[in-house]
């Protein structure tokens, strides 16, 4: 069953066409990743799907009362508003302090509940955003470059957690990601976006598609291979000062 579907979405800012002819749907339990260069309209598309932005053409259907967990690409909490981590988590609608604390532990920052949001590091902030999204008991989790600011082990842990969540709750996951190797291993479906859908399909299909290779380079062929033999290549010698 499709949780969110979009037909013929187009977005235009003045004379600039950001998105056109986008058809999309996501089903229960599906993991879909959107890849594409900067300025391809990835974030705009997510914002259209959650209803934060009205498309210039086309329509979006969400199942009635759909619970969406959204992790925005950027969220600045200014110093003007005092906001502790615990209070921010409660804004998700989950008022139970022990549930919220358990979620913080799960995303790996159990000791930050009393901190101010503005004092968190980039990585901690992303984790709190994820905890916030998960506490809303989402049926679909929409993540806009969720791993930016995370170090390598944290990125791995992040994707493991997301997979667990999918398995536990059967919640669908839609994300924009630049972590091509992870994307290629863990997604059911990959959408390659550059103003329109260039190509779409299983990770292995997409990595072989000429449209994908045109965007991400042929020698990425694919990121699958890159992932498997990361250490098989030699580097050019770098002069050490």
């Amino acid at each position, binding site marked *: 069953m499709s949780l969110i579907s979009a037909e013929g979405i187009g977005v235009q800012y003045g004379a600039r066409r950001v998105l056109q002819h986008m058809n999309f749907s996501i089903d229960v339990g599906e993991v879909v990743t959107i890849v594409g260069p900067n300025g391809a309209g990835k974030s705009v598309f997510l*914002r259209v799907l959650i209803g934060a932005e009205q498309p210039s053409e086309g329509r979006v259907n969400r199942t009635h009362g759909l619970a969406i967990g959204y992790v925005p690409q950027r969220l600045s909490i200014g110093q003007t508003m005092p906001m502790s981590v615990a209070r921010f988590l409660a*804004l998700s609608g989950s008022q139970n302090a022990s549930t919220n604390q358990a979620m913080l532990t799960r995303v790996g920052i159990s000791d930050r509940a009393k901190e101010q949001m503005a004092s968190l590091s980039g990585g901690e902030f992303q984790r709190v955003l994820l905890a916030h999204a998960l506490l809303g008991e989402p049926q679909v989790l929409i993540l806009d470059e969720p791993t930016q600011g995370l170090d390598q082990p944290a990125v791995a842990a992040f994707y493991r957690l997301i997979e667990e969540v999918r398995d536990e709750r059967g919640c669908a996951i839609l994300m924009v990601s630049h972590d091509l190797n992870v994307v290629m291993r863990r997604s059911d479906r990959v959408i390659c976006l550059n103003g329109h859908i260039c190509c779409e399909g299983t990770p292995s299909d997409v990595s072989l598609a000429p449209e994908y290779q045109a965007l991400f380079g042929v020698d990425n062929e694919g990121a699958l291979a890159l992932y498997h033999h990361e250490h098989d290549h030699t580097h050019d010698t770098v002069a050490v000062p």
Partner: protein
Amino acid sequence: MVRAALAGVGLACVAGPLGCFVVWRRMAYFGDATAHAAILGVALSLAFSVSIFLGVLVMALVMASATSMLSGRLYAMDTLLGVAAHAALALGLVAVSFLSGVRVDLMAYLFGDILAVGLGDLAMIWLGATAALSLLCWRWGSLLTVTLNADLAAARGINARWEQQVLIVALALVVAVAIKVVGALLITAMLIIPAAAVRPFARTPEAMAVFAAGAGVFSALAGLGVSFRLDTPTGPTMVACAAVVFVVANLAFMGRRGA
């Protein structure tokens, strides 16, 4: 004197929490535009002899809605609000001057006349303040989410435009309530100064709202007391007291952090 105190307390209780949103959402100029429209409201209500409260409320609503809708691309929001705020004030003053038949004490509307608050005024002040405060309490969670991030709110099915409208109505109510107390020129001060004063001591939005109400009540009562003793205009004295609270609070915070 008791009536004046009750009027000041009523205003401060709602101005504190609403002022927090004005501070968080950087709406200070927006507050000014709405408040200045009140003078135009006064002129119109005198001209058509309807209640001042009603005239100010309607004018503030019109002004706030118009400016929030007009926020376009050609001008930045603060330019647009600057035009609106000063145009409304100037138009209001011109309009009042046409009312030659009525003797209008302009100073009372510009700077408030809390000592002249009657029982009827007091009832209106508390009614308006309660209505605005109830509105804020009712929408509190949604308002906070929208203020944090509009996209986050949209994902949760919260309509940002609707919540903005809620704030506009609350602001218009407070302006209508406050014009008798501190006057059109100092309404924004009663919104912003208490909220800003307590910011260093609050760790959650709720704490800041409650502290701001407290700081506002203190400023109102202290201002009333001081103006009674020194025979100074009451509205400005209240705002001056709030400013003192702001300075002392920040000095105390810096001292505590330095220690």
